[in-house]
């Protein structure tokens, strides 16, 4: 087990670990490493890319290519709470468009943006798989179903007060 440390100003420094024991794992370690970096910092800082590049012996440019290919990875920090709106079919036919409108009105931001106070980021996700509760959104790890504009506003209020 190798423990990696990435020094980073201001933000809390956490160690992220990855099993690099076998050569085979080493070969496929890039994505798990990027995921751990993102878990630690909330995004993938530039420094982390260079650091990981040294470990896995893959050029930083190629790592950048991998990062931008997958929608999970971010190169910019996110807000404290991440709202993910489900864009699945069931949600779509049950009115996810208006869910997005309500959220945009409430937060004053569009998709893939973060509020000025850094409290909320708004994202969309292909399908959360809770189709029977459509329309659905997720705030952090919590799923909210059968959404109405009232429910959305209530949920956002809860998080706003829980600063």
């Amino acid at each position, binding site marked *: 087990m190798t423990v990696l440390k990435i020094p980073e100003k201001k933000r809390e420094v956490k160690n992220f670990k990855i099993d690099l024991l076998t050569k085979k794992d080493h070969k496929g370690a890039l994505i*798990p490493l*990027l995921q751990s970096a993102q878990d630690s910092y909330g995004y993938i800082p530039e420094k982390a890319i260079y650091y990981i590049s040294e470990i896995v012996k*893959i050029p930083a440019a190629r790592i950048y290519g991998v990062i931008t290919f997958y929608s999970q990875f971010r190169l910019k920090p996110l807000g404290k709470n991440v709202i993910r709106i489900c864009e699945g*079919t*069931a949600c*779509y036919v049950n009115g996810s468009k208006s869910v997005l409108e309500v959220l945009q009105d409430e937060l004053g931001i569009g998709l893939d943006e973060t509020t000025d106070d850094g409290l909320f980021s708004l994202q969309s996700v292909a399908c959360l*798989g809770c189709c*029977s509760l*459509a329309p659905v959104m997720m705030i952090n790890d919590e799923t909210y179903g059968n959404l109405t504009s009232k429910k959305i506003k209530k949920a956002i209020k809860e998080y706003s007060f829980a600063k």
Partner: protein
Amino acid sequence: MKEIKVGLGTCGISAGGKMVYNEFKDKLSQNNLDIEVKQTGCMGMCYNEVLVEVVDNGDSYLYSKVSSDNVEKIVNEHIIGNHPVDEWIATSRKNIEKDPFFKKQKRIVLQNCGIIDPGSIDDYILYDGYKAIKKALQKYSQLEVIDIVCNSGIRGRGGGGFPTGVKWKFSYEAPGDSKYIICNADEGDPGAFMDRSILEGNPHSVLEGMMIAGYAIGAQEAYIYIRAEYPLALKRLKTAIGDCEKKGYLGENIFGSNVSFTIKIKEGAGAFVCGEETALIASIEGKRGVPRLRPPFPAHKGLWQNPTNINNVETFANISWIILNGADKFASMGTEKSKGTKVFALAGKIARSGLAEVPMGMTINEIVYDIGGGIKDGKKFKAVQIGGPSGGCIPASMGDMKIDYEEVTKTGAIMGSGGLIVLDNTTCMVDLAKYFLNFTQNESCGKCTFCRIGTKRMLEILERITLGKGRENDIELLEDLAEKIKNSSLCGLGQTAPNPVLTTIKYFRDEYEAHIIEKRCPAHSCAALLTYTINENCTGCTLCAKKCPVNAISGEVKEIHEIDQDACIKCGLCFNACKVGAIDKL
């Protein structure tokens, strides 16, 4: 002896299941009752969440739509007083055969989902868990296992429908010392959630299927590639794998044989195309998830150039049942070329949405009406969308069609992973086709020109049609582009991306024409093509005028109001606000 089970799949938790679970624990301990409160996965009755099952001397009662406020009454009257609260009970295990939702189902994959505690390996063992792998190791040679799977007739449940046994045989015969098993749990189709429910409700059944596959083809290592959007499934899988390792079910010499087998988890990073097997392999290898040309097939050159067998979650979940019950019993279900059962994720405008496992060959009408209870809010059944973005729409007029791989393919859709979205007459088919194309266009990896640019052009055409700016030959242009994209794309994503457009043109051409020629949306869904007017029902309450964000509504109090069509932005707020039905949407 009583026992309480609370359905805690993602759907149950979102509906408030955790609060109900905690409330039961509190109430039971307040009353000093030593009764176990168990968590289970999804029973499939998603429309009834939160589901609570009270096991009571041999029978058990299913309480539907339980909230934490109901708990006290259930505890007082049923648990303590021995009088089940009838008005809240959906059905009981004894009567489950009579329940309309379950009556026509045949549960193999889902047989223990919602019954066992997915976090407990002992619970799984209690329900015949890990008997099939023991049987395979002790009784059958590798080839015999493959023969059983071949004879069962099971085909890939991830969408492709390739015979599973044949696939195993290829990997078995492929030369190479290290072989791999991969479980594809990258369930990316919007509208599909059966793999999630299986992983959340019975993760061990998938692991056991993988072990049997590993033994059969001679693989010692396996990966589960799972979507990062499924945190609960991931958590339960991790627990399950950990428990197996502790018991020695995974590792060296499993179950006292000379077979070694390990399973690792790889989390996806959010790319739909990674559901395609070669892209998935590239992603496990840490690369961009871009598909490559086949052959060589993964069975010969897969993960790190080694022979690799990839199956979907639901396929693996069928395997132990087949080994325990025999190939013939499995093959006795279904149609001539599609054997066994299929789990469908019923959602959309349907009264009873949830998971339904039915024998192959059941008709669309049986699924929608008998199991699903028909359309929500008494609206008209228009079509089902099957197979997600690779599939298509089958109109209600073809409701007698039997669902199996061949029949679905004939319509221009595909079986896909099993998402079944039911649509009513308020869904615009052009808009729906646009929705799917927007999805595939976003998710195209960009390798093939036709998929990358062609889908973009198709999307632009659909956009202008829904905005009322469609041109005369747009339908032909769409068909032309669609065919070229299908023929010139490397992987399944591009080859099937035009299906939603083609099937909607095939069965709902009149809707396209209404948009293009008459500038009208028959489903009253495309905002740009709507006209809001006020009829004689208007009481002059001024509510609509107050709601209008652009002050397009004028009129005196208690007199009929009027909408200025030039100023109207068609937001629909007046329509939603009016309490007397005085606003027409045309």
